[in-house]
């Protein structure tokens, strides 16, 4: 059973077209939920950690929110440089479970 599911698998947006990425999880006793950005050929770049339902964090055009069973990464007015794969991971104890990512393409 998948612990972390991300949707959609791929997303194409016009520049300036806001949207949201979803990360749902089935583990209980969440220690933290992480969002990362990964560019081709590079390691994941840390974006946010969320710890409890109702928490929100923002960074430039990105805003991450957390509920009891899912998290959303909202992208406001995206630019082409936001194109990347966005990974979600949950931590339960010392166990990390990664989703398969959402590949985002922002078209000028």
């Amino acid at each position, binding site marked *: 059973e998948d612990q972390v599911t991300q949707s959609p698998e791929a997303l194409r947006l016009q520049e300036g077209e806001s949207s949201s990425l979803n990360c749902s999880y089935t583990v209980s006793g969440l220690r933290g939920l992480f969002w990362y950005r990964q560019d081709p050929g590079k390691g*994941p770049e840390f974006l946010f950690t969320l710890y409890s339902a109702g928490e929100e964090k923002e960074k430039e055009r990105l805003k991450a929110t957390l509920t009891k069973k899912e998290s959303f990464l909202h992208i406001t007015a995206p630019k082409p440089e936001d194109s990347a794969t966005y990974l979600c*991971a949950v931590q339960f104890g010392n166990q990390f479970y990664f989703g398969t990512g959402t590949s985002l393409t922002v078209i000028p």
Partner: protein
Amino acid sequence: SAVISQKPSRDICQRGTSLTIQCQVDSQVTMMFWYRQQPGQSLTLIATANQGSEATYESGFVIDKFPISRPNLTFSTLTVSNMSPEDSSIYLCSVEKGLAGGFEQFFGPGTRLTVL
């Protein structure tokens, strides 16, 4: 934050040989992790490496295949032993850093391994 470097950045190896990947962090950390990311897939945790103790391996990974060293708080190595083409993957080192009220996890740039 944490700055993590890995060596080599990429390598092409022959079946049956072994490769040791180095991970260096710019600050002392307690917990270091080794991940594998196979083509088109997400990250899979191989093991957790704590300084002064044996590494803890995840299900499906064994010490004979992936021996790990952690000689100090800023350095670790992962060896991929007796390689086969199925070991072709990106291998990533990561560290966890505690912050006031929480923690963050940072990744190195990865080592891209191709086994022929």
